[in-house]
Protein backbone atom coordinates (compact mmCIF):
# COMPACT_ATOMS: atom_id res chain seq x y z
CA UNK A 1 0.00 0.00 0.00
CA UNK A 2 1.40 3.39 -0.97
CA UNK A 3 1.95 5.93 1.75
CA UNK A 4 -0.79 8.42 2.43
CA UNK A 5 -0.26 11.64 0.57
CA UNK A 6 -1.15 15.19 1.44
CA UNK A 7 -3.65 16.59 -1.05
CA UNK A 8 -2.62 20.14 -0.06
CA UNK A 9 0.96 19.47 -1.16
CA UNK A 10 -0.23 18.09 -4.47
CA UNK A 11 -2.52 21.04 -5.17
CA UNK A 12 0.26 23.42 -4.19
CA UNK A 13 2.76 21.76 -6.56
CA UNK A 14 0.22 21.75 -9.36
CA UNK A 15 -0.75 25.36 -8.61
CA UNK A 16 -4.42 24.39 -8.53
CA UNK A 17 -6.69 25.78 -5.85
CA UNK A 18 -9.17 23.21 -4.51
CA UNK A 19 -12.31 23.56 -2.43
CA UNK A 20 -12.78 21.28 0.57
CA UNK A 21 -15.27 19.16 -1.40
CA UNK A 22 -12.89 18.83 -4.32
CA UNK A 23 -10.08 17.88 -1.97
CA UNK A 24 -12.17 15.11 -0.43
CA UNK A 25 -13.18 13.78 -3.85
CA UNK A 26 -9.64 13.94 -5.30
CA UNK A 27 -8.14 12.38 -2.19
CA UNK A 28 -10.38 9.39 -2.78
CA UNK A 29 -9.73 9.23 -6.56
CA UNK A 30 -5.97 9.55 -6.23
CA UNK A 31 -5.94 6.89 -3.54
CA UNK A 32 -7.55 4.48 -6.01
CA UNK A 33 -4.91 5.35 -8.62
CA UNK A 34 -2.17 4.67 -6.09
CA UNK A 35 -3.70 1.29 -5.37
CA UNK A 36 -3.51 0.48 -9.09
CA UNK A 37 0.15 1.49 -9.07
CA UNK A 38 0.71 -0.74 -6.07
CA UNK A 39 -0.72 -3.63 -8.05
CA UNK A 40 1.78 -2.89 -10.85
CA UNK A 41 4.61 -2.95 -8.33
CA UNK A 42 4.01 -6.66 -7.86
CA UNK A 43 4.93 -7.48 -11.46
CA UNK A 44 8.46 -8.82 -11.74
CA UNK A 45 10.26 -6.68 -14.37
CA UNK A 46 13.84 -6.99 -13.24
CA UNK A 47 14.89 -8.84 -16.39
CA UNK A 48 12.91 -6.58 -18.72
CA UNK A 49 14.61 -3.98 -20.92
CA UNK A 50 13.59 -0.42 -20.03
CA UNK A 51 11.86 1.12 -23.01
CA UNK A 52 9.81 4.23 -23.00
CA UNK A 53 8.61 4.21 -26.59
CA UNK A 54 5.86 1.86 -27.75
CA UNK A 55 7.63 1.17 -31.06
CA UNK A 56 11.11 0.69 -29.56
CA UNK A 57 12.15 3.54 -31.75
CA UNK A 58 15.62 4.99 -31.24
CA UNK A 59 16.06 8.72 -30.80
CA UNK A 60 17.07 10.53 -33.97
CA UNK A 61 19.41 13.46 -33.64
CA UNK A 62 19.31 16.68 -35.65
CA UNK A 63 22.26 18.45 -37.30
CA UNK A 64 23.27 21.65 -35.46
CA UNK A 65 21.93 24.13 -37.98
CA UNK A 66 19.86 27.18 -37.18
CA UNK A 67 16.74 27.81 -39.21
CA UNK A 68 14.43 30.73 -39.41
CA UNK A 69 12.37 31.17 -36.24
CA UNK A 70 8.90 32.62 -35.82
CA UNK A 71 8.57 36.26 -36.76
CA UNK A 72 8.58 38.32 -33.57
CA UNK A 73 5.09 39.69 -34.30
CA UNK A 74 3.73 36.18 -34.86
CA UNK A 75 5.31 34.90 -31.65
CA UNK A 76 3.68 37.67 -29.63
CA UNK A 77 0.35 37.59 -31.46
CA UNK A 78 -1.71 35.62 -28.93
CA UNK A 79 -0.30 37.27 -25.86
CA UNK A 80 -2.93 39.32 -23.96
CA UNK A 81 -0.27 41.82 -22.88
CA UNK A 82 3.18 42.73 -24.21
CA UNK A 83 5.74 45.37 -23.31
CA UNK A 84 8.93 46.32 -25.19
CA UNK A 85 8.94 42.98 -27.01
CA UNK A 86 8.35 40.93 -23.83
CA UNK A 87 5.39 38.80 -22.77
CA UNK A 88 3.82 40.32 -19.67
CA UNK A 89 2.59 38.02 -16.89
CA UNK A 90 1.44 38.68 -13.31
CA UNK A 91 4.32 39.24 -10.89
CA UNK A 92 5.88 35.90 -10.10
CA UNK A 93 8.68 35.78 -7.61
CA UNK A 94 9.78 32.52 -6.17
Amino acid at each position, binding site marked *: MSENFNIDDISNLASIELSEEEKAKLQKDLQIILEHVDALKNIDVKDEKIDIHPLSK*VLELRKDESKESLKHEDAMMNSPETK*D*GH*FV*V*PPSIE
Partner: protein
Amino acid sequence: MNLKATIGMETHVELDTKSKMFCSCEVVETDEPNISVCPTCLGLPGALPVPNKTAIQYIVMLSLGANCKITNEGMFHRKNYFYPDLPKNYQISQFDFPVGVNGSLEIVLDEELHSVEIERVHMEEDTGKSVHMGSGRIDSATSTLLDFNRSGVPLVEVVTKPVISTSKMAVAYIEELRQLVIDLGISKGKLEKGNLRFDANISVANEDSNELGTKVEIKNMNSLKSLEKAIDYEIMRQSKQIKKGESVIQETRHWDENKQVTISMRTKEGSADYRYFSDPDLPNMIIDEEFINNSKKNIQNLPTDKRKTLKESGLSLSDSNYLDKGDKWLYDLYLSTVENTKDSKSTFNFLTGELQGQMRKAEIDELPDWVDSEKISNLINLFETNEVSFTSAKDILAKLLGEDIDPKTYATDNNLIQSSDDEEIKTLVTSVIKENQDIVERLEDPEDKLVGFLVGQVMKSSVNKVNPGSVKDILLKELFG
Protein backbone atom coordinates in the same frame (compact mmCIF):
# COMPACT_ATOMS: atom_id res chain seq x y z
CA MET B 1 32.92 20.61 19.47
CA ASN B 2 34.88 20.39 16.22
CA LEU B 3 32.77 20.74 13.11
CA LYS B 4 33.48 19.94 9.49
CA ALA B 5 31.84 21.27 6.33
CA THR B 6 30.92 19.17 3.32
CA ILE B 7 30.19 20.80 -0.02
CA GLY B 8 28.82 19.45 -3.27
CA MET B 9 28.68 21.60 -6.41
CA GLU B 10 26.05 21.68 -9.14
CA THR B 11 27.21 23.55 -12.21
CA HIS B 12 25.25 24.43 -15.34
CA VAL B 13 27.35 24.82 -18.46
CA GLU B 14 25.78 26.58 -21.45
CA LEU B 15 26.99 24.83 -24.59
CA ASP B 16 28.29 26.85 -27.52
CA THR B 17 26.10 25.45 -30.31
CA LYS B 18 24.63 27.28 -33.28
CA SER B 19 21.06 26.18 -32.59
CA LYS B 20 19.05 25.33 -29.48
CA MET B 21 18.79 21.89 -27.85
CA PHE B 22 15.43 20.70 -29.16
CA CYS B 23 14.63 23.13 -31.99
CA SER B 24 16.47 24.91 -34.79
CA CYS B 25 16.21 28.42 -33.35
CA GLU B 26 19.55 30.19 -33.40
CA VAL B 27 21.32 30.66 -30.06
CA VAL B 28 21.58 34.45 -29.88
CA GLU B 29 23.31 36.94 -27.66
CA THR B 30 21.12 40.01 -27.83
CA ASP B 31 19.09 42.39 -25.70
CA GLU B 32 16.26 42.33 -28.22
CA PRO B 33 13.67 40.00 -26.62
CA ASN B 34 11.79 37.11 -28.25
CA ILE B 35 13.46 37.23 -31.66
CA SER B 36 14.73 33.63 -31.69
CA VAL B 37 11.70 31.64 -30.63
CA CYS B 38 9.49 28.99 -32.22
CA PRO B 39 6.56 26.77 -31.16
CA THR B 40 8.97 24.25 -29.53
CA CYS B 41 10.89 26.64 -27.27
CA LEU B 42 7.73 28.63 -26.53
CA GLY B 43 6.06 25.41 -25.37
CA LEU B 44 3.12 25.74 -27.77
CA PRO B 45 0.81 22.70 -27.89
CA GLY B 46 1.74 20.03 -30.41
CA ALA B 47 5.35 21.11 -30.94
CA LEU B 48 7.85 18.25 -30.85
CA PRO B 49 11.45 18.32 -29.63
CA VAL B 50 14.31 16.97 -31.81
CA PRO B 51 17.70 16.86 -30.06
CA ASN B 52 20.79 18.62 -31.37
CA LYS B 53 23.51 16.10 -32.34
CA THR B 54 26.38 18.53 -31.65
CA ALA B 55 25.08 19.16 -28.12
CA ILE B 56 25.06 15.40 -27.47
CA GLN B 57 28.58 15.16 -28.88
CA TYR B 58 29.67 18.02 -26.58
CA ILE B 59 28.20 16.41 -23.46
CA VAL B 60 29.93 13.14 -24.34
CA MET B 61 33.22 15.08 -24.73
CA LEU B 62 32.69 16.78 -21.36
CA SER B 63 31.84 13.46 -19.70
CA LEU B 64 34.99 11.87 -21.14
CA GLY B 65 37.06 14.92 -20.14
CA ALA B 66 35.72 14.50 -16.59
CA ASN B 67 36.66 10.78 -16.68
CA CYS B 68 33.05 9.61 -16.54
CA LYS B 69 31.57 6.33 -17.68
CA ILE B 70 29.22 6.94 -20.62
CA THR B 71 25.67 5.58 -20.37
CA ASN B 72 25.17 3.85 -23.71
CA GLU B 73 21.42 3.84 -23.53
CA GLY B 74 20.15 7.02 -21.98
CA MET B 75 16.83 8.80 -21.91
CA PHE B 76 15.23 12.16 -21.30
CA HIS B 77 12.82 12.89 -18.49
CA ARG B 78 10.35 15.66 -17.81
CA LYS B 79 11.02 17.64 -14.65
CA ASN B 80 7.71 19.23 -13.78
CA TYR B 81 7.38 22.59 -12.07
CA PHE B 82 5.45 25.78 -12.64
CA TYR B 83 7.28 28.99 -13.32
CA PRO B 84 6.53 31.53 -16.06
CA ASP B 85 10.00 31.29 -17.64
CA LEU B 86 9.33 27.59 -18.33
CA PRO B 87 6.40 27.67 -20.77
CA LYS B 88 5.90 23.88 -21.09
CA ASN B 89 5.62 23.61 -17.28
CA TYR B 90 8.35 21.00 -17.46
CA GLN B 91 12.00 21.08 -18.28
CA ILE B 92 13.41 18.32 -20.48
CA SER B 93 16.22 16.91 -18.39
CA GLN B 94 17.71 13.55 -17.45
CA PHE B 95 17.00 11.59 -14.28
CA ASP B 96 18.22 8.05 -13.71
CA PHE B 97 20.16 7.57 -16.97
CA PRO B 98 22.41 10.63 -17.32
CA VAL B 99 25.00 10.70 -20.14
CA GLY B 100 28.03 10.54 -17.82
CA VAL B 101 28.43 8.97 -14.37
CA ASN B 102 31.16 8.35 -11.79
CA GLY B 103 33.93 10.61 -12.99
CA SER B 104 36.59 12.78 -11.37
CA LEU B 105 38.40 16.03 -11.98
CA GLU B 106 41.96 16.69 -10.86
CA ILE B 107 42.34 20.11 -9.24
CA VAL B 108 45.29 22.08 -7.89
CA LEU B 109 45.23 23.70 -4.46
CA ASP B 110 48.45 25.51 -3.62
CA GLU B 111 51.15 22.95 -4.41
CA GLU B 112 48.94 19.87 -4.10
CA LEU B 113 46.80 17.83 -6.47
CA HIS B 114 43.32 16.80 -5.29
CA SER B 115 40.63 14.78 -6.98
CA VAL B 116 36.98 15.86 -6.99
CA GLU B 117 34.60 13.01 -7.70
CA ILE B 118 31.86 13.70 -10.23
CA GLU B 119 28.53 11.99 -9.63
CA ARG B 120 26.78 12.75 -12.91
CA VAL B 121 26.83 14.81 -16.08
CA HIS B 122 23.41 15.26 -17.65
CA MET B 123 21.80 17.08 -20.55
CA GLU B 124 18.98 19.58 -20.20
CA GLU B 125 17.60 22.81 -21.61
CA ASP B 126 17.76 26.38 -20.32
CA THR B 127 14.74 28.45 -19.30
CA GLY B 128 13.69 31.89 -20.52
CA LYS B 129 14.59 35.07 -18.66
CA SER B 130 12.29 37.00 -16.34
CA VAL B 131 12.49 40.70 -15.61
CA HIS B 132 10.45 41.87 -12.63
CA MET B 133 8.85 45.28 -13.06
CA GLY B 134 7.97 47.76 -10.35
CA SER B 135 9.81 50.12 -8.11
CA GLY B 136 12.00 49.15 -5.24
CA ARG B 137 12.02 45.70 -3.74
CA ILE B 138 11.76 42.59 -5.90
CA ASP B 139 8.83 41.26 -3.84
CA SER B 140 6.78 44.35 -4.59
CA ALA B 141 7.02 43.82 -8.39
CA THR B 142 3.89 44.79 -10.30
CA SER B 143 4.44 42.50 -13.28
CA THR B 144 6.96 40.11 -14.81
CA LEU B 145 8.35 40.45 -18.34
CA LEU B 146 9.41 37.32 -20.21
CA ASP B 147 12.01 36.80 -22.92
CA PHE B 148 12.33 33.30 -24.39
CA ASN B 149 15.49 33.77 -26.50
CA ARG B 150 17.37 31.64 -23.94
CA SER B 151 14.57 29.08 -23.62
CA GLY B 152 15.84 25.73 -24.92
CA VAL B 153 19.54 26.63 -25.13
CA PRO B 154 21.51 23.41 -24.40
CA LEU B 155 22.70 23.14 -20.81
CA VAL B 156 24.84 20.48 -19.23
CA GLU B 157 24.62 19.99 -15.48
CA VAL B 158 27.71 18.65 -13.76
CA VAL B 159 27.14 17.40 -10.21
CA THR B 160 29.96 16.51 -7.82
CA LYS B 161 29.72 14.11 -4.93
CA PRO B 162 29.78 15.83 -1.52
CA VAL B 163 33.58 15.72 -1.35
CA ILE B 164 34.62 19.38 -1.22
CA SER B 165 35.62 20.68 2.19
CA THR B 166 36.48 24.38 1.80
CA SER B 167 35.45 27.43 -0.24
CA LYS B 168 38.94 27.57 -1.80
CA MET B 169 38.58 23.98 -2.99
CA ALA B 170 35.16 24.79 -4.50
CA VAL B 171 36.68 27.75 -6.37
CA ALA B 172 39.58 25.60 -7.64
CA TYR B 173 37.05 23.01 -8.86
CA ILE B 174 34.99 25.60 -10.78
CA GLU B 175 38.19 27.03 -12.31
CA GLU B 176 39.18 23.54 -13.45
CA LEU B 177 35.74 22.77 -14.90
CA ARG B 178 35.66 26.14 -16.65
CA GLN B 179 39.08 25.50 -18.21
CA LEU B 180 37.97 22.02 -19.26
CA VAL B 181 34.94 23.31 -21.20
CA ILE B 182 37.04 26.06 -22.80
CA ASP B 183 39.83 23.66 -23.82
CA LEU B 184 37.25 21.20 -25.17
CA GLY B 185 35.80 24.08 -27.21
CA ILE B 186 32.25 23.26 -26.10
CA SER B 187 31.40 26.45 -24.19
CA LYS B 188 32.63 30.02 -24.08
CA GLY B 189 32.99 29.52 -20.31
CA LYS B 190 32.39 33.19 -19.49
CA LEU B 191 31.12 33.49 -15.94
CA GLU B 192 30.03 37.10 -16.41
CA LYS B 193 27.82 36.04 -19.34
CA GLY B 194 26.23 33.20 -17.35
CA ASN B 195 27.85 30.48 -19.50
CA LEU B 196 28.71 28.79 -16.21
CA ARG B 197 26.27 29.01 -13.28
CA PHE B 198 26.80 27.21 -10.02
CA ASP B 199 24.93 26.27 -6.87
CA ALA B 200 26.57 24.89 -3.75
CA ASN B 201 25.08 22.30 -1.38
CA ILE B 202 26.59 22.87 2.02
CA SER B 203 26.24 20.92 5.24
CA VAL B 204 28.04 21.07 8.56
CA ALA B 205 28.41 18.13 10.95
CA ASN B 206 30.45 16.95 13.88
CA GLU B 207 34.00 16.13 12.78
CA ASP B 208 33.74 12.57 14.16
CA SER B 209 30.37 11.85 12.58
CA ASN B 210 30.14 9.57 9.56
CA GLU B 211 26.88 11.14 8.54
CA LEU B 212 26.44 14.42 6.70
CA GLY B 213 24.58 17.32 8.29
CA THR B 214 21.40 18.88 6.88
CA LYS B 215 21.97 20.11 3.33
CA VAL B 216 21.36 23.75 2.44
CA GLU B 217 21.48 24.81 -1.19
CA ILE B 218 22.97 28.22 -2.01
CA LYS B 219 22.04 29.96 -5.26
CA ASN B 220 22.74 33.25 -6.99
CA MET B 221 26.52 33.34 -6.82
CA ASN B 222 27.64 35.12 -9.96
CA SER B 223 31.40 35.13 -9.55
CA LEU B 224 34.13 33.04 -8.00
CA LYS B 225 34.55 35.76 -5.37
CA SER B 226 30.90 35.52 -4.35
CA LEU B 227 31.09 31.70 -4.40
CA GLU B 228 33.96 31.81 -1.93
CA LYS B 229 32.29 34.37 0.33
CA ALA B 230 28.88 32.66 0.24
CA ILE B 231 30.35 29.28 1.22
CA ASP B 232 32.39 30.81 4.06
CA TYR B 233 29.34 32.70 5.30
CA GLU B 234 27.08 29.65 5.13
CA ILE B 235 29.56 27.40 6.97
CA MET B 236 29.79 30.04 9.69
CA ARG B 237 25.98 30.43 9.90
CA GLN B 238 25.33 26.69 10.18
CA SER B 239 28.20 26.16 12.64
CA LYS B 240 26.85 28.89 14.93
CA GLN B 241 23.41 27.31 14.85
CA ILE B 242 24.73 23.83 15.65
CA LYS B 243 26.90 25.15 18.49
CA LYS B 244 23.82 26.86 19.96
CA GLY B 245 22.08 23.47 19.87
CA GLU B 246 19.65 24.53 17.12
CA SER B 247 18.93 22.42 14.08
CA VAL B 248 19.65 23.51 10.51
CA ILE B 249 16.60 23.56 8.20
CA GLN B 250 16.87 21.94 4.77
CA GLU B 251 16.18 24.83 2.40
CA THR B 252 17.38 26.87 -0.54
CA ARG B 253 19.09 30.14 0.32
CA HIS B 254 20.13 32.93 -1.96
CA TRP B 255 23.40 34.88 -1.73
CA ASP B 256 22.77 38.60 -1.27
CA GLU B 257 25.76 40.33 -2.84
CA ASN B 258 24.97 43.71 -1.26
CA LYS B 259 24.42 42.47 2.27
CA GLN B 260 27.02 39.69 1.98
CA VAL B 261 24.69 37.16 3.62
CA THR B 262 22.59 34.17 2.54
CA ILE B 263 18.83 34.63 2.74
CA SER B 264 16.18 31.90 2.91
CA MET B 265 14.31 31.56 -0.42
CA ARG B 266 11.91 28.66 -0.06
CA THR B 267 11.67 25.22 1.40
CA LYS B 268 13.48 22.86 -0.88
CA GLU B 269 11.38 20.60 -3.06
CA GLY B 270 12.42 16.98 -3.04
CA SER B 271 12.98 15.13 -6.32
CA ALA B 272 9.57 13.39 -5.89
CA ASP B 273 7.91 16.81 -6.01
CA TYR B 274 9.25 17.33 -9.53
CA ARG B 275 7.26 14.29 -10.67
CA TYR B 276 9.99 13.13 -13.04
CA PHE B 277 8.80 10.80 -15.78
CA SER B 278 10.35 9.73 -19.06
CA ASP B 279 9.49 12.06 -21.93
CA PRO B 280 7.26 10.15 -24.38
CA ASP B 281 8.28 12.57 -27.16
CA LEU B 282 11.89 11.41 -26.93
CA PRO B 283 12.68 7.68 -27.37
CA ASN B 284 15.76 6.05 -25.85
CA MET B 285 19.02 7.74 -26.84
CA ILE B 286 21.72 5.34 -27.98
CA ILE B 287 25.30 6.52 -27.51
CA ASP B 288 27.29 3.71 -29.11
CA GLU B 289 31.04 3.13 -29.29
CA GLU B 290 31.25 4.72 -32.74
CA PHE B 291 29.63 7.93 -31.44
CA ILE B 292 31.95 7.93 -28.41
CA ASN B 293 35.04 7.39 -30.58
CA ASN B 294 34.02 10.18 -32.93
CA SER B 295 33.60 12.49 -29.94
CA LYS B 296 37.00 11.42 -28.57
CA LYS B 297 38.69 12.58 -31.78
CA ASN B 298 37.81 16.17 -30.88
CA ILE B 299 39.47 15.99 -27.47
CA GLN B 300 43.04 17.22 -27.20
CA ASN B 301 45.30 19.09 -24.82
CA LEU B 302 43.05 19.17 -21.78
CA PRO B 303 43.96 21.18 -18.65
CA THR B 304 45.70 18.15 -17.07
CA ASP B 305 47.81 17.63 -20.23
CA LYS B 306 48.73 21.32 -20.33
CA ARG B 307 49.73 21.28 -16.65
CA LYS B 308 51.91 18.25 -17.29
CA THR B 309 53.70 19.99 -20.19
CA LEU B 310 54.22 23.12 -18.08
CA LYS B 311 55.54 21.12 -15.14
CA GLU B 312 57.96 19.32 -17.42
CA SER B 313 59.34 22.70 -18.49
CA GLY B 314 60.46 23.19 -14.86
CA LEU B 315 57.59 25.17 -13.33
CA SER B 316 56.07 24.47 -9.91
CA LEU B 317 52.58 22.97 -9.76
CA SER B 318 50.90 26.25 -8.79
CA ASP B 319 52.76 28.22 -11.51
CA SER B 320 51.79 25.51 -14.03
CA ASN B 321 48.19 25.78 -12.88
CA TYR B 322 48.28 29.57 -13.22
CA LEU B 323 49.33 29.38 -16.89
CA ASP B 324 46.95 26.48 -17.51
CA LYS B 325 44.03 28.67 -16.40
CA GLY B 326 45.21 31.77 -18.27
CA ASP B 327 44.77 32.92 -21.86
CA LYS B 328 45.85 30.50 -24.55
CA TRP B 329 48.24 33.01 -26.12
CA LEU B 330 50.11 33.32 -22.80
CA TYR B 331 50.40 29.54 -22.51
CA ASP B 332 51.72 29.27 -26.11
CA LEU B 333 54.06 32.25 -25.65
CA TYR B 334 55.49 30.79 -22.44
CA LEU B 335 56.24 27.41 -24.04
CA SER B 336 57.93 28.85 -27.13
CA THR B 337 59.85 31.43 -25.06
CA VAL B 338 61.15 28.96 -22.48
CA GLU B 339 62.49 26.84 -25.33
CA ASN B 340 64.93 29.69 -26.07
CA THR B 341 65.62 31.00 -22.57
CA LYS B 342 65.84 27.54 -20.90
CA ASP B 343 64.91 29.34 -17.69
CA SER B 344 61.37 28.49 -16.61
CA LYS B 345 61.15 30.62 -13.47
CA SER B 346 62.53 33.80 -14.98
CA THR B 347 60.39 33.37 -18.13
CA PHE B 348 57.28 32.77 -16.00
CA ASN B 349 58.03 35.79 -13.80
CA PHE B 350 58.71 38.08 -16.74
CA LEU B 351 55.56 37.04 -18.64
CA THR B 352 53.14 37.00 -15.72
CA GLY B 353 54.70 39.91 -13.83
CA GLU B 354 56.10 42.40 -16.31
CA LEU B 355 54.35 41.56 -19.57
CA GLN B 356 50.86 41.02 -18.13
CA GLY B 357 51.34 43.96 -15.75
CA GLN B 358 52.30 46.36 -18.54
CA MET B 359 49.51 45.07 -20.80
CA ARG B 360 46.97 45.69 -18.04
CA LYS B 361 48.36 49.16 -17.48
CA ALA B 362 48.21 49.94 -21.20
CA GLU B 363 44.76 48.30 -21.37
CA ILE B 364 45.82 45.87 -24.11
CA ASP B 365 44.01 42.49 -24.15
CA GLU B 366 45.95 40.88 -26.93
CA LEU B 367 49.62 40.83 -27.71
CA PRO B 368 50.53 43.05 -30.72
CA ASP B 369 51.34 40.99 -33.86
CA TRP B 370 55.03 41.88 -33.83
CA VAL B 371 55.67 40.66 -30.29
CA ASP B 372 56.75 37.04 -30.58
CA SER B 373 58.60 34.52 -28.46
CA GLU B 374 61.90 35.35 -30.21
CA LYS B 375 61.77 39.01 -29.19
CA ILE B 376 60.57 38.20 -25.66
CA SER B 377 63.25 35.57 -25.13
CA ASN B 378 65.93 37.93 -26.50
CA LEU B 379 64.77 40.53 -24.01
CA ILE B 380 64.78 38.05 -21.10
CA ASN B 381 68.28 36.91 -22.11
CA LEU B 382 69.47 40.56 -22.19
CA PHE B 383 68.76 41.11 -18.50
CA GLU B 384 69.48 37.57 -17.39
CA THR B 385 73.03 37.94 -18.77
CA ASN B 386 73.31 41.41 -17.23
CA GLU B 387 73.66 43.01 -20.64
CA VAL B 388 70.91 45.44 -19.63
CA SER B 389 69.55 46.21 -16.17
CA PHE B 390 66.11 44.95 -15.18
CA THR B 391 64.88 48.56 -15.20
CA SER B 392 66.09 48.96 -18.80
CA ALA B 393 64.44 45.64 -19.73
CA LYS B 394 61.13 46.97 -18.43
CA ASP B 395 61.57 50.16 -20.51
CA ILE B 396 62.39 48.10 -23.60
CA LEU B 397 59.28 45.96 -23.05
CA ALA B 398 57.11 49.08 -22.77
CA LYS B 399 58.59 50.31 -26.06
CA LEU B 400 58.10 46.90 -27.68
CA LEU B 401 54.40 46.85 -26.79
CA GLY B 402 53.99 50.15 -28.62
CA GLU B 403 56.09 49.57 -31.73
CA ASP B 404 57.98 46.91 -33.63
CA ILE B 405 61.56 47.12 -32.32
CA ASP B 406 64.36 44.61 -31.94
CA PRO B 407 65.20 44.62 -28.19
CA LYS B 408 68.97 44.22 -28.67
CA THR B 409 69.25 46.90 -31.39
CA TYR B 410 67.08 49.25 -29.33
CA ALA B 411 69.25 48.67 -26.23
CA THR B 412 72.43 49.33 -28.22
CA ASP B 413 71.06 52.43 -29.97
CA ASN B 414 69.82 53.88 -26.71
CA ASN B 415 72.98 53.19 -24.77
CA LEU B 416 71.34 50.70 -22.43
CA ILE B 417 73.93 47.93 -22.79
CA GLN B 418 75.88 47.50 -19.56
CA SER B 419 79.57 46.88 -19.71
CA SER B 420 80.58 43.47 -18.49
CA ASP B 421 84.24 44.29 -19.02
CA ASP B 422 85.81 44.03 -15.53
CA GLU B 423 88.95 45.86 -16.66
CA GLU B 424 86.90 48.83 -17.81
CA ILE B 425 85.03 48.90 -14.50
CA LYS B 426 88.30 48.58 -12.57
CA THR B 427 89.76 51.63 -14.36
CA LEU B 428 86.63 53.64 -13.50
CA VAL B 429 86.73 52.45 -9.87
CA THR B 430 90.40 53.38 -9.48
CA SER B 431 89.85 56.88 -10.76
CA VAL B 432 86.77 57.42 -8.53
CA ILE B 433 88.78 56.25 -5.45
CA LYS B 434 91.54 58.68 -6.37
CA GLU B 435 89.14 61.61 -6.80
CA ASN B 436 87.31 60.87 -3.51
CA GLN B 437 90.15 60.26 -1.08
CA ASP B 438 88.42 62.22 1.70
CA ILE B 439 85.44 59.87 1.58
CA VAL B 440 87.56 56.74 1.24
CA GLU B 441 89.38 57.71 4.45
CA ARG B 442 86.08 57.96 6.34
CA LEU B 443 84.96 54.44 5.30
CA GLU B 444 84.76 52.05 8.23
CA ASP B 445 83.45 48.79 6.80
CA PRO B 446 81.89 47.33 3.61
CA GLU B 447 78.40 48.04 4.99
CA ASP B 448 79.08 51.79 5.16
CA LYS B 449 76.47 53.92 3.42
CA LEU B 450 79.25 55.82 1.69
CA VAL B 451 79.99 52.73 -0.42
CA GLY B 452 76.70 53.39 -2.17
CA PHE B 453 77.77 56.94 -2.88
CA LEU B 454 81.00 55.72 -4.46
CA VAL B 455 79.12 53.14 -6.60
CA GLY B 456 76.92 56.01 -7.79
CA GLN B 457 80.00 58.05 -8.72
CA VAL B 458 81.37 55.15 -10.80
CA MET B 459 78.02 54.72 -12.57
CA LYS B 460 77.96 58.45 -13.28
CA SER B 461 81.48 58.46 -14.71
CA SER B 462 80.80 55.54 -17.07
CA VAL B 463 80.05 56.34 -20.69
CA ASN B 464 78.70 52.86 -21.28
CA LYS B 465 76.21 51.54 -18.72
CA VAL B 466 77.87 49.30 -16.18
CA ASN B 467 76.23 46.74 -13.97
CA PRO B 468 75.91 48.23 -10.46
CA GLY B 469 76.40 44.79 -8.89
CA SER B 470 79.74 44.29 -10.66
CA VAL B 471 80.80 47.85 -9.73
CA LYS B 472 80.10 47.22 -6.05
CA ASP B 473 82.00 43.91 -6.09
CA ILE B 474 85.07 45.44 -7.71
CA LEU B 475 84.94 48.57 -5.55
CA LEU B 476 84.80 46.56 -2.30
CA LYS B 477 87.63 44.35 -3.49
CA GLU B 478 89.77 47.44 -4.19
CA LEU B 479 88.93 49.04 -0.82
CA PHE B 480 88.86 46.16 1.57
CA GLY B 481 90.72 43.48 -0.31
